[in-house]
């Protein structure tokens, strides 16, 4: 019995208690790992599904198709077709025109609901539509006298009805829309006067005030973010690469460079709002650069991105095998030739990855922009660079923040829609980083 027991203990086919314990520990660890990953995936799925679920509807919008007679009596009394004179007719005049056109069309088709006021019928159309029509007419005065077919935004509440955000029950309680208006909207949709279409205005249009959430778009914010990224890229890449090459390859190793190294690592961990305070003090108050402008935003984000790029670049330079440097130096290349002809090209994939990740981080940054006046309502597109760098602009993450603060419920989907656009940009940048690394990476 005892002999058998000893035999069994040493058998490779039978696991003893200690091996079992070790195997159990490993199994447990695997479960922990899977739980950790599962938790992360779950959080991601919840985040993405809420954002995508509430944000996709922002890309589609209800439009009212209208035949608008552009009456010369109303729009151009002098009859000179002079845009300066025609500009005297304000959006209020154009709004009345649109309202009358809609009422006329409904009466003609026999859809005019009995006893409904013209103002309530006009309420189906967005307040943005008069401005669009006015711009259209002022840009092309020859349209006056003709009847144009015009796609106007439907009011945000009507749009919300077709998206399921507004119901007949909530409309009965809502002071901004009535169930009768919703019934009319249903009838108009059945008659092809109203339709849901992809809304390019959400991506390219400017922001809008709270009276017309249906017209709010991301155009100015996307442009502002693009300008800032351009400035960050042009400034931080050369500065960061130059600094890291010097520190890594040329600088003597002494207390002073150690101090610089510690400082750079520290700067990378400084909260971004601190850079905003710096930007306000240095770029706006001291240098006198204009507020709310992409140049100040870009400079602040450059300061924020520099440490990230320097750290990534130094790591990439360090990863180049010393044998390559030694070989270059050995056949008589100067130190500079060694660095620029051999080390830098080999380190490039790592540098680019670091840069793109730094840029992606800067793209999503809001806090420093708060202090330099970029968290603002900006409706005019900035001009083309370089003058446009000085014009006021918003930024994508700022636009998300602005949308979430507004009272009208229609802005909730637009905030989520803006997050989707921001995430697409981030995804594209990170994919670029991965592709660059894959394509240019060398292994030794």
């Amino acid at each position: 019995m005892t002999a058998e027991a000893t035999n069994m203990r040493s058998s490779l086919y039978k696991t003893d208690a200690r091996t079992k314990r070790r195997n159990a520990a490993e199994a447990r660890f695997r479960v922990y790992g899977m739980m950790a990953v599962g938790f992360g995936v779950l959080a991601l799925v919840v985040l993405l599904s809420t954002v995508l679920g509430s944000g996709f509807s922002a890309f589609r919008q209800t439009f009212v198709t209208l035949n608008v007679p552009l009456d010369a009596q109303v729009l151009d009394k002098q009859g000179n077709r002079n845009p300066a004179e025609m500009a005297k007719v304000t959006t209020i005049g154009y709004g009345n025109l649109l309202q009358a056109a809609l009422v006329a069309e409904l009466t003609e088709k026999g859809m005019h609901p009995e006893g409904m006021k013209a103002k309530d019928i006009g309420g189906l159309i967005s307040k943005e539509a008069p401005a669009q029509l006015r711009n259209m007419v002022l840009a092309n005065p020859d349209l006056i006298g003709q009847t144009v077919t015009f796609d106007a935004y439907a009011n945000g509440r009507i749009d919300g009805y077709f998206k399921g955000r507004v119901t007949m029950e909530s409309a009965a309680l809502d002071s901004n829309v009535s169930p009768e208006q919703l019934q009319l909207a249903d009838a108009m949709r059945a008659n092809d006067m109203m339709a849901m279409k992809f809304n390019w205005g959400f991506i390219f249009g400017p922001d809008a005030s709270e009276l017309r959430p249906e017209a709010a778009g991301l155009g100015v914010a996307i442009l502002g973010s693009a300008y800032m990224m351009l400035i960050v890229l042009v400034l931080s890449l050369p500065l960061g690469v130059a600094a890291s090459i010097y520190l890594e390859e040329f600088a003597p190793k002494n207390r002073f460079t150690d101090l610089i190294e510690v400082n750079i690592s520290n700067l990378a961990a400084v909260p971004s709002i601190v850079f905003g305070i710096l930007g306000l003090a240095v770029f706006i108050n001291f240098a006198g650069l204009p507020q709310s402008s992409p140049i100040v935003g870009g400079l602040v984000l450059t300061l924020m991105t520099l440490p990230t790029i320097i750290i990534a670049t130094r790591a990439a330079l360090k990863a180049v095998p010393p044998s390559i440097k030694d070989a270059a130096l050995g056949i008589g290349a100067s130190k500079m030739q060694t660095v620029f002809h051999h080390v830098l090209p080999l380190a490039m994939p790592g540098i680019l990855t670091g840069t793109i990740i730094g840029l992606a981080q800067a793209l999503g940054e809001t806090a420093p922009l708060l202090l330099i006046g970029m968290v603002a309502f900006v409706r005019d597109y900035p001009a083309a660079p370089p003058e446009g760098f000085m014009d006021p602009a918003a930024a994508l993450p700022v636009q998300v923040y602005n949308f979430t603060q507004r009272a009208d419920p229609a802005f909730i989907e637009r905030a989520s829609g803006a997050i989707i656009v921001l995430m697409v940009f981030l995804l594209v940048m990170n994919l670029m980083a991965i592709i660059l690394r894959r394509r240019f990476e060398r292994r030794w």
Partner: protein
Amino acid sequence: MKTVKLTVSALAIIAASTSGALARDQIQSAGSSTVLPYATIVAEAFGENFDFPTPVVESGGSGAGRKKLCEGVGENTIDIANSSSRIKQSDIDTCAANGVTEIMEVRIGYDGIVFASDINGAEFAFTPADWYNALAAEVVKDGALVANANKTWADVNAALPAQDILAFIPGTKHGTREVFDTKVIEAGCEATGALELFVAAAGGDEKEGAKKCMNLRTDGVSVDIDGDYTETLSRIDANKNAIGVFGLSFYQNNTDKLRVATMDGIVPSTETIAKGEYPVSRPLYFYVKNAHLGVIPGLKEYIEFFVSDDMAGPNGPLAAYGLVSDPELAATQAMVAAETPMGPLK
């Protein structure tokens, strides 16, 4: 080497454009988030109908806006500060020290502050005394000040539903809180007789007594909301028993989710506030730097447009959004046309 040259020249271009002309051609304003929606509505309409660029409107709070206004004169400083409370003497002093001597005070209208709960909840009819007895740290009981032990609204006032007290009130950085404190809590303090006892306890010092009124309970029934009204709304959504403090315009945009409470028997609306019946309201202002008039293109046109009947009048878009039109708007229009700077604070 080529890349180095390229980047150097790019840097040079940026530097050159930086030092170039900085003439600003759009109006810049900053300040109260309560005034922000009104300012954006006007800015949008202004940009559409005038040959000037659309003004830039920043939020950030009344105090921050006034501070920015007082930073000095010049194109790097803002032109207009939006404010949901009146400018303070300290602001005027800072302004004067920085060379901003002439400021124009423009009152655009009034804003109501409403108390609202979940649409499916019970009806409430409050008085300021109810709010004081619900939220104050010390209340009057049998002629003496005791620590507040009220648990439900029915404890406060038998006419109210027996629902746990839970109130979401604006945080101290909000201008709305100031109005809540003075028009509701202080009024309630006086109505319940607590003010008298506080003053007596402070040895007749009325200021000290009034200060004591503002001490709210810290046992979790009164929750400060430092975010905006959207946060209050989502907190109420999660906590159906709670009552929140909102601006009238926010409530009007969410009438399908919120049930509004009356105050002293009056339902808040633009009409009752304009008539002065609803007690909890406050004026909204913006402050203009007179030195910038005629320098920043369109500034005067914008101000005149803001206070015109088309915008701020009783039938204008601002009233449609929830602003209570100022009955003395004509006087404001005349003041703007004459560019009269404000006198010393009374």
